[in-house]
């Protein structure tokens, strides 16, 4: 699985980083950043899916 955050859509609800802190971090303003190169380890796939589902702005894209 690969994941990316559309920075033009993120406004910093911070749900993703609360749900899956291994994959999502925060910049200084509180907007989401993907940690690493966007590859999701199998043990974090469930967390990423919940993060996608929990983003009010629909700013996270996960692809298999």
């Amino acid at each position, binding site marked *: 699985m690969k994941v990316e955050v559309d920075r033009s859509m993120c*406004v*910093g*609800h*911070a*749900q993703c*980083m*609360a*749900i899956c802190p291994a994959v999502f971090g*925060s*910049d*200084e*303003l*509180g907007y989401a950043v993907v940690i690493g190169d966007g590859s999701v380890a199998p043990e974090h796939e469930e967390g990423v899916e*919940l993060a996608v*589902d*929990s*983003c*009010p*702005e629909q700013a996270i894209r996960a692809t298999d």
Partner: protein
Amino acid sequence: MTTTGRAQAFDHNDHAMRARCAEAYAELRDHCPVSYSDAWGGFWIASRYEDVYEVGRDVERFASGPGVMLPPVGHGRPLLPMDSDPPEHPEYKRLLLPRFAPAAVAGMEQDVRDLARGLVEGIAGRGEADLYETLCKPLPMLLITRLLGIERDEAFWAWTDTLIYGRVDGTDAGEIRAAADGLYGFLASQIADRRANPGRDDLISLLLVGDVEGRPYREDEILDLCFFLLIAGLENTAFGIRATLRHLAVEPAHRAAVLADPDLVHNLVEQSLRLYAPVTALCRTATRTTEVAGQTIGEGERVLLLFGSANRDPAVFPDPDDFHLDRRDGRHVAFGIGPHRCVGSNLARLELRVAVEELLRLIPDFRLAEGPDPGWYDASSLNIVWDAR
């Protein structure tokens, strides 16, 4: 089908409506998703999630500068950064957001916990308490005054009480005005104090170094930002804590589940925010004639974003009117949607969670006091009883 519907007198502030909001919101979503109300001088209502999402995110078609509170607050000054548009709005947020970002808020957790613990310790031996007055209201007040670096005195409490808690319960307009004047005057003196004593770490001092595209903030901007930083997290946070604690009092199974699995507190907080959203609705003003869900909205007309209804839209949340402790449902819009997302959302979430944790730590088993259920929808007393040992 979308029609030019008239919800006539729909009023999102009406407590009787809020008490039966599941039906009222469903009626709007199902029969007339963008309907019109004659209340408060007239406005359109976006009731479905997808329409709230569309309007809230589009700051070019829908402005906030004309004011987003409906009805407007009684004192005629803008609430910043909420009542602003580009270029000012992103600049206000650029200054404020680092102070409320997840890492900064995580650093406040111990402080918040100490405050909450002290409040709960104050009632733990009593066996009965009004949680609204002893925990829900004081926690955010203690916290925000600390962040602003201000001392509270008697007059300060009276002004905020009248202004924040009086707005929705019919306090006389002259009284509200006088309280606003008192509070603005107090804050102006605080700002003058920070100018004379620069270099402090509080939020008022932060505002003094703000700029909009290189232009320093004007005095009125500093005062309006300062005022809203103070009041934004008071009533709403108190309301949110109250609704969450009341839920635990009336749903012992949920209380037991959170005690057994403390991680469930996150779902508890999110479900509470979704179903009992403290900010039911805010509005936007169309910058040009446009359409939402096929409904024409005229230039200058207002559109209410009915967050409470979006949060109960079955298109997004299955069985939307039930409290799902096993679900997060983090897409709810209790903190708004789009660039105007509540600056303090991370802090508010922290306060809700810590209030629950600290109450349950000392008072794990409690119930509503005798009498009618006070409901989640009023900012009023929340009397509970428990076996104090």
